[in-house]
C-alpha cells in the first residue's frame, strides 16, 4: 500500500516536470517564430514582446531544475525514471538557450527595424527558420509521444540547416561587400542566421536526450559521409 503511494507521488511530481517542459517548448517555439517574423517584417513592437517573454523561460528552467533535484533527493529514482528526470534538466537547458537565441534575434530586429534589406535575404532567413522550427516541433512531438523512430532522420535535416546557413552566409557577405552602408544591418542579419542555425543544433541535442531517456543508449554516431557530391534532400 505504502509503495503504491510512493510510486504515484513520484509519477505526480514527474508529470509536473514533464508538463512544464511542454510549456517551455511551446513558449520557445513561439519566441522563435515571432522573432523571425518581427525581423522579416521590421516589427519592433512584436520584437519587444518576444524580449519580454524570455523571462518566462528562464523562470521555468529554474523551476524544473529545483523540482528535479528535489525529486532525485526525495524519491531516488532509478533506471528510466532517473533518465526522465535528468533528461528534463537537460532539455529545459536546451529550451532556455533556444529562448535566449530567439530573444537575441528579436533584439537585433529592433536594432535594424529602420533599415530595409533585399527580399531574397528575408526569404532565405524565413526558410532557414522554417527548417529550424520544423526540427523543434518534431523533437517536441517526439518528447510527447516517446516515439524514437523518427529521431535519426532529424540529423539529415540538421545537415540541411547547416548547408542553408552556409549559403546565406555567402549571400550576406556579397551583399555587404556591394553595399558598404549596409554592413551594420548585414552583420545583424548574419548573427540572426547563426542564431537560427544554433536553434537547430539545440533541437538535435534534445533529440539525442530523448533517445537516451527512452532507450538508455546513446544515439548512433553520425553516418560517415561517403559521398562528397554537393547534394540536398528536401523533405516536407
Amino acid at each position, binding site marked *: 500500500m505504502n509503495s503504491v503511494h510512493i510510486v504515484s507521488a513520484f509519477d505526480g511530481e514527474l*508529470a509536473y516536470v*514533464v*508538463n512544464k*517542459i*511542454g*510549456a517551455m*517548448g*511551446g*513558449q520557445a*517555439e*513561439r519566441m522563435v*517564430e515571432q522573432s523571425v517574423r518581427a525581423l522579416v517584417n521590421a516589427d519592433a513592437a512584436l520584437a519587444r514582446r518576444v524580449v519580454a517573454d524570455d523571462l518566462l523561460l528562464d523562470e521555468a528552467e529554474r523551476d524544473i531544475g529545483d523540482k528535479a533535484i528535489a525529486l532525485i533527493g526525495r524519491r531516488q529514482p532509478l533506471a528510466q525514471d532517473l533518465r526522465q528526470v535528468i533528461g528534463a534538466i537537460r532539455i529545459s537547458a536546451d529550451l532556455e538557450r533556444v529562448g535566449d537565441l530567439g530573444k537575441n534575434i528579436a533584439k537585433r530586429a529592433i536594432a535594424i527595424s529602420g533599415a530595409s534589406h533585399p*527580399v*531574397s535575404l528575408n*526569404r*532565405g532567413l524565413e*526558410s532557414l527558420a*522554417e527548417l529550424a*522550427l*520544423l526540427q523543434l*516541433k518534431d523533437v*517536441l*512531438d517526439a*518528447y*510527447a*509521444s516517446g*516515439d524514437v523512430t523518427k529521431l535519426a532522420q532529424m540529423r539529415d535535416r540538421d545537415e*540541411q540547416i547547416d*548547408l*542553408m546557413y*552556409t*549559403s*546565406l552566409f*555567402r549571400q550576406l557577405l556579397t551583399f555587404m561587400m556591394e553595399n558598404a552602408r549596409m554592413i551594420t544591418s548585414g552583420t545583424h542579419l548574419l548573427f540572426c542566421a547563426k542564431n537560427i542555425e544554433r536553434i537547430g543544433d539545440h533541437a538535435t541535442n534534445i533529440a539525442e536526450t530523448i533517445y537516451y531517456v527512452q532507450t538508455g543508449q546513446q544515439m548512433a554516431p553520425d553516418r560517415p559521409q561517403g559521398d562528397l*557530391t*554537393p*547534394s*540536398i*534532400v*528536401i*523533405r*516536407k
Partner: protein
Amino acid sequence: MLDRLRALIPPGAVATPEAARTIRREGNPTERLSASSFAAALSDPVIFFDKDGFVVDANRAAHDMFGKLDAGLGLLLKFRAPDIRGLVEQLLAGNAAPAIDYIERVPLERMFRVSGSRVGEDGLFVLIFKDQSEVRRIDRMRADFIANASHELRTPLASVAGFIETLRGPAKDDPKARAQFLDIMQNQAGRMARLLDDLLSLSRLEMKPRLDGGARVELKEIIRAVLDTLGPMAAETKVVIDTRLPEGDATVIGDRDELFQVVQNLIENACKYGRSGGRVIVAIEPQADGVDLSVTDFGPGIPAEHIPRITERFYRVEAEGGRVEKGTGLGLAIVKHILARHNARLSITSQPNVETRFTAHFPPME
C-alpha cells in the same frame, strides 16, 4: 387525393405523432449514443481528454490533421502553444474558457479556432478544432500574390516601357534597331505571361495543401506525355532526351496534372540549364521503399552553395559568364510544393560540369 399528396412527402419531413410517441416511450435514442461514435461523424478534429490532461480519445479528423493521438498522450505536450495551454488549464480548473486561435506554422500553415468544455459527469473534457486555414490562406495568398507580382513584373515591364520610349524617340527611323527591340519586347512580354502563369499555379497549390482522393497515376505514361509536348523545345535547344523506363508498372498515388507539371518543369530545366551537356536522361527506378523518378543533365551544374536554396521562390543562381535568364524563378518552388503534397522527397545532387540530378522519391502505394 390526400393519400397521394402524402406519398409525395419524403419520410421524416413531417413529424408524425407515432415518432413523437416512440421517443416519449423509449427515450431519446441520441441519449444512448456514445461520444466517440458521435465525434467520428464530425469532420472537425475533436479530442477528448481527462482531468489530468491526457488524451482519452480523438476522432478520425484529429488523427488526419495532427498525426497520431494515442490515448494517454499528454495533451499539453502535443499542443504546446501558450494560448491552447491557457484554454486547457482554465477548463481543468473548472472554469469556462472562451475560444482561442491556434496557429501552426510548420510544416504547413494552418489556423484553427479552438473551443473546449467539460462533457458529462466523469471528469471528461473535449476540445473542438474548427479549421480556419482556408480563410487565412486566401488572405495571405492575396497579399503574397500582390507583393510577388508587383515586385517581379516590375523589371520586365520597365524594360518594355523603356524600349517603347526609345522606339518613339531616338530609334524612330532605324529599322534594324526596331526589329531588335521588338524581339526583346516580345521576349519580355512572354516572360511576364509565364510569370503570371507560374504565380497562379503556385497560389492554387498553396490554397489546397492536401491532395484529395487517392487517384492513381502511372509515371511512365506521364513521362511520355511530357516528352510529346516538349519535343519542339528539345529540338530547339538541340538536347537529346533519353529515357530509362523499367518494364514493370510505376504507379503512384497522386494527381495527374500536378505530376505532369513536376516532370515538365524538371525536364525543361534540364534542357535549359544543361543544354551544353547535349543530353538529358529521364529515368524511373523502382526502389525497395517506393519509386524514384530522376532527371539528369550534364551541363555546368549548380554550385554547392546554391543547392540548399534553389527551391526558394525567385532564388536565382548567378552563374559566371552571365547565363541568360529564361526562368521565372518559380519552377522548382512549384515542384517542391507538389512533391510535398504527394509525400514525396526531392533530392538534388550536382557535380559541376559532370552531372546534375533531380530525383523525386515517391513512397510506396500502401
